[in-house]
C-alpha cells in the first residue's frame, strides 16, 4: 500500500514559488532520501508532508487519508523530527512524552514511555527539564517524541546537522530499525554519504522540483555524489 502519495505539490510565498509541481510516493519499508542545498525548499516540503503548512495546490494522501481535507485525522499516523524540538523545553522528557502520548490517546503509556526512554538512553535524565540537555540529547529526545505513538510514516528534516559522530550513528541505527519494522521514512539531508548509507531511494530537490529518482541498486555512492555535484552546478549556473 502507498503510505504517502503527494502529487503536483506547489507552494508559493507571495510571488516566490518554493515548490513547483512536485510528486513523491512512498511505500512501507522504504527510506527515501531527498538531497538538496540550503534554501532548496526541503524544510517547506517536510512541513507540507507533515500537514503543518498547506500547499498552494496539489494533493496529499497519508495512509489513504486525504491529508489536506482531513489533516486532523491524518496526523496521528505520522511522526516528525524537525529542526525544532516541537515540545516544551521547560518540561522533562517524561512529562513531554506523557503529555503528547495522552493527546494521541495511547494505551499502556507508562510502559511505552519507559521503553522509549530506555532506547534513547535518557532514563537518567527523565525528570530533568529538556532545556538543560546537549544537542545530541535533545535530538534523541526528539526521536523518542516522534516515535511515541508508533506512526507508520516518519519524516526527518536534516536529522544529522549539528551532531557528533556517535549521535549520527545513533540516529542512523534508529532509522534503520524503524525501516526494518515496516515504517515508511522520508529524510532530507545535504550529506551524500550518510544519506546514501541509510536510503533505499534517492531524489534531488533543486529549484523547487524533485529531479530523478534512483533506487539504491542502480547507483553507487560515488556516482550519486558526482551526480549531485553536477546538478548543483548546473542549477547555480541557471
Amino acid at each position, binding site marked *: 500500500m502507498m503510505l504517502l502519495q503527494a502529487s503536483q505539490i506547489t507552494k508559493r510565498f507571495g510571488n516566490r514559488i518554493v515548490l513547483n509541481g512536485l510528486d513523491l510516493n512512498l511505500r512501507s519499508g522504504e527510506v527515501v532520501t531527498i538531497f538538496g542545498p540550503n534554501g532548496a525548499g526541503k524544510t517547506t516540503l517536510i512541513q507540507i508532508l507533515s500537514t503543518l*503548512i498547506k500547499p498552494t495546490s496539489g494533493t496529499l494522501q497519508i495512509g489513504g487519508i486525504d491529508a489536506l481535507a482531513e489533516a486532523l485525522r491524518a496526523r496521528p499516523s505520522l511522526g516528525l523530527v524537525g529542526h525544532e*524540538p516541537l*515540545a516544551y523545553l*521547560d518540561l522533562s522528557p517524561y512529562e513531554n512524552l506523557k*503529555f503528547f502520548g*495522552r493527546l494521541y490517546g495511547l494505551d499502556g503509556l507508562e510502559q511505552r514511555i519507559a521503553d522509549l526512554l530506555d532506547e534513547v538512553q535518557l532514563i537518567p535524565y527523565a525528570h530533568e527539564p529538556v532545556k538543560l540537555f546537549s544537542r545530541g540529547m535533545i535530538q534523541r529526545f526528539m526521536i523518542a517524541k516522534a516515535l511515541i505513538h508508533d506512526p507508520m510514516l516518519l519524516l526527518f528534516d536534516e536529522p544529522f546537522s549539528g551532531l557528533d559522530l556517535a549521535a549520527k550513528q545513533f540516529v542512523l541505527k534508529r532509522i534503520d530499525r524503524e525501516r526494518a519494522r515496516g515504517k515508511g521514512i522520508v529524510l532530507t539531508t545535504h550529506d551524500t554519504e550518510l544519506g546514501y548509507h541509510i536510503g533505499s531511494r534517492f531524489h534531488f530537490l533543486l529549484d523547487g522540483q524533485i529531479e530523478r529518482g534512483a533506487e539504491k541498486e542502480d547507483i553507487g555512492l560515488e556516482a550519486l555524489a558526482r551526480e549531485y555535484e553536477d546538478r548543483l552546478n548546473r542549477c547555480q549556473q541557471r
Partner: protein
Amino acid sequence: MGVFRQIGWLIHKDLALQFRTKEMLALIIVFSVVVVLIFCFAFGPIFPEKLEERGKLAASVLWGTFLFAGIITLNRSFDIERANGALHGLRLTGVDASYFYLSKVVSIFVFLILLEVIVTPIALQFLDVLTILPVALQKELPWLLLKLIGVLAIGTLGFCAVGVIVSGISTNTDGTESLLSVILLPLTFPVIMAGAKCTVSLLTTGGLEGNFWISILIVYGLIFLASSSLLFEFVVEG
C-alpha cells in the same frame, strides 16, 4: 468524555508550565502590587471621602491592574507555545484547535484568578476602602470579597476569551507585546466599563440589584467564547 479529558490534559500542561517557574507568579504579583502602588501614590495619601468616589477609584485601580497583568500573562503563555515549535508538536497530535483554545482560556483564567485573589485585598487595603464601608457590609466582609472575586472572575473570563485569540494572532509578529496591547485593549473596553460599574455597585451597596452591567459581562464572555473557539482553527492552522 474524551473531549473533556483532552482539554483537561492541555490545561494540566499549561498550569504545570506556568507554575514550573515560580518566578512567573511572583513576578506578576509584584508587578500588580507595584501598579496598585503607583495609583495610590498618584491619588493618595488622602483618598476621596465619599464611599462612591472611593469605590470608583478602587474599581479603576483593580481593573487597570488586572488588565495589564493579563496582557503580560497572555504574552508569556504564547511565547512558550511558539518557542521550539511546541505548538506544531501539539498540532501533530491531531487535537482540535477549539480544545486548545478552551484549555488556554481556562489555564490563563485560573492563573489570573489566583492573582486577583491575592492582589484584591491588598489593593483594597492600600486604598483604605474597607474602613469606610457601611457597617452592614463590614459585618459580612468575606461574603462581599467573595462576590467581588465572582465579578472579577466573570470579567476575567471575557478578557481571556478575547485575549487568547488575539495573542494567538499577535504572537506571529515581532513587536508582540506592544502590538497585543494596541489590538486587545480596544476590544476589552466593554469589560472595563461593565466590570468597574459592577465593582462600584458591590462596594457601595453590597449587591448588584437592578444592574445590567453583570449581564453585559456575561454576554460578552459568551459571545467571544463561542465565536473564538470557532475562529481559533484559522489562527492555528492558517
